[in-house]
């Protein structure tokens, strides 16, 4: 177990190293930071002095080493626009994004398991055909269309739900204020969460359905029937457990990917998260903020994958963690 953990952490660190290298290379190629810092009026000599002072004339590797050293200490540079540490800017926006992802995840888990299981058990029912039909549509319609369509229907026409912003939030701790403690907060997060979930949900329903159908064909399910076990137990204990094992791995990766998908959703709904912030940063060529965003998203991705792998090892009795570490 311990060896496996160490191995996983090493892998995670290696991935983070590569992400940081790519991010730094991007920063290096995105225009001259001096122009952003001092403007046009400063003379060429002062510029050169500043350049030396900032270490911009050092070799690439030296600069990267410095960048990495700072990054490890949590210093990802200072945002040109906000005049604040980039990491601080992101951390202020992070909770809004994570809550949006959490909302979408709740919708996905809450709907995909029952719908996937149902369509696998009763593949020929009208209900199943309907679900599968809608899921195809869901996969093929882009997120921003779903989002705009929902805003039109629920906000403009029916006036049931707000179309932008987070609404009333409650401060929890640090930069974290939450949508989940007020009715207004729930109303605001509903549409964006559904929009964000709209791509992944159909994929998950189909994934669970096909895994479940395969499992239901297995010899051990037939054996369970031969023992006189009730169908309910066969579906939800014998089959579902085996179905969810492969789904966990795929699912974890997808939830990590969803963080990146938030850029679109947040922009359409004016959601004050880091996806929205990233798009603004790109418009303002706020390089440190862009780089910091890439690193933070990469970090979230690596962390979710590592956690998912560990969970998989824990719930699957045929995976011996100690052996995997060897």
């Amino acid at each position, binding site marked *: 177990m311990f060896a496996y953990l160490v191995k996983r952490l090493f892998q995670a660190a290696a991935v983070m190293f590569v992400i940081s290298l790519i991010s730094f290379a991007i920063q290096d190629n995105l225009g001259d930071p001096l122009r952003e810092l001092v403007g046009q009026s400063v003379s060429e000599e002062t510029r050169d002095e500043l350049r030396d002072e900032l270490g911009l004339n050092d070799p690439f590797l030296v600069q990267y080493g410095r960048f990495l050293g700072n990054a490890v200490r949590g210093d990802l540079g200072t945002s040109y626009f906000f005049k604040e540490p980039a990491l601080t800017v992101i951390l202020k926006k992070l909770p809004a994004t994570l809550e949006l992802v959490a909302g979408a995840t709740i919708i996905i888990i809450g709907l995909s398991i029952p719908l996937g299981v149902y369509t696998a058990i009763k593949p020929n029912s009208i209900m199943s055909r309907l679900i599968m039909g809608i899921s195809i549509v869901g996969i093929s319609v882009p997120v921003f269309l779903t989002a705009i369509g929902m805003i039109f229907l629920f906000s403009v026409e029916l006036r049931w739900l707000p179309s932008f912003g987070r609404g009333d939030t409650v401060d929890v701790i640090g930069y974290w204020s939450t949508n989940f403690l007020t009715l207004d907060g729930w109303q605001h997060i509903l549409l964006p969460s559904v929009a964000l979930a709209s791509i992944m949900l159909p994929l998950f329903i189909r994934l669970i359905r096909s895994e479940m159908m395969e499992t239901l064909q297995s010899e051990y399910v037939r054996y369970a029937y031969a*023992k*006189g076990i009730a169908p309910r137990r066969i579906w939800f204990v014998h089959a579902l457990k*085996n179905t969810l094992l492969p789904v966990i791995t795929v699912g974890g990766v997808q939830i990590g990917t969803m963080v990146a998908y938030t850029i679109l959703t947040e922009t359409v709904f004016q959601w004050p998260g880091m996806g929205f912030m990233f798009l603004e940063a790109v418009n303002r060529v706020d390089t440190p903020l862009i780089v910091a965003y890439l690193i933070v998203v990469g970090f979230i991705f690596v962390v979710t994958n590592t956690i998912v792998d560990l969970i998989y090892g824990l719930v*699957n009795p045929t995976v011996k963690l100690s052996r995997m570490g060897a």
Partner: protein
Amino acid sequence: MSLLSVRDLVVKFAMRNNTVTALNKISFDLARGERIGIVGESGAGKSITGFSILNLLSKPGYIDSGSITFDGEDITQMTDPQLRDIRGNRIAMIFQDPMVTLNPVLTIGQQMVETLQAHRRLSKSDAEQIAIAKLREVYIPAPEERLAQYPHELSGGMRQRIIIAIALLLDPQLIIADEPTTALDVTIQADIMELLLELCQSNKVSLILITHDLGVVSQMTERTLVVYAGRIIEAGPTREIINDPQHPYSQGLINALPQQTPRGEKLKQIPGAMPALSAVPDGCAFNPRCSFATDTCRKTVPEVTRIDHLEVACHEVRRHHETEEVAE
């Protein structure tokens, strides 16, 4: 009254374009405590027969007609709850491959306890006590520790012993064993068979043993059914079928046994192969492979003839028998 009475059982598969017949008017009886063997080549319909008795055919298979009377009740007419009450409780089944029969994510204990609790009101600890006792009966070492183990932690032979223990959990009247040792190492096949025989005898359980190994049948069973292309072509006391088979197909099977062939000689296999269900020939299904086949064999399906203790479905055997009777 016999424990099990199968009459004119017809099983079909609804394929995309047509319907094929997998079992064609199968009839046989099984007395209480009796052990019978069902033998035949691959694809003959042995497993289908076994699954039909539990009414557990997987799609697209279905029972088309006929009856399966178990202890006075017709299984083909039962509702799902009635069937569930019989499965695993009064009729237990042992599957072919122990490596894929047990659920990989449930412990041995869970899979034993759930079986008991599906049929009896028992607390978990009471059920575990019964499970441990049954594991001991099949000579599993340290049975208490097995309950917490997962299938992958055990060898194939060990798993098949556990499956036999599960079959015995509720003291069934009938055990159907579908090639219980073919997936196992040769060295332990005989052990498992011996164990199964011993347990059936001591618990007075009837046994239907499905196999293509006539040697096993002769050790384990009192009566034998020889199946070919979905029909019983010869049935009777095992000893007579082994020593003096009447049907050319049974004779072919016996002659193909390694014991029948002197060392160094090639095994005498029956030429050709069993037909696919969609291409069963007219008349006697065996006729293309039979060296005695006549025009009658190619046109009409042979009726069952009784010859002493044997029932044989063969035109030639019947003709011989009738001329002998006339001669007497």
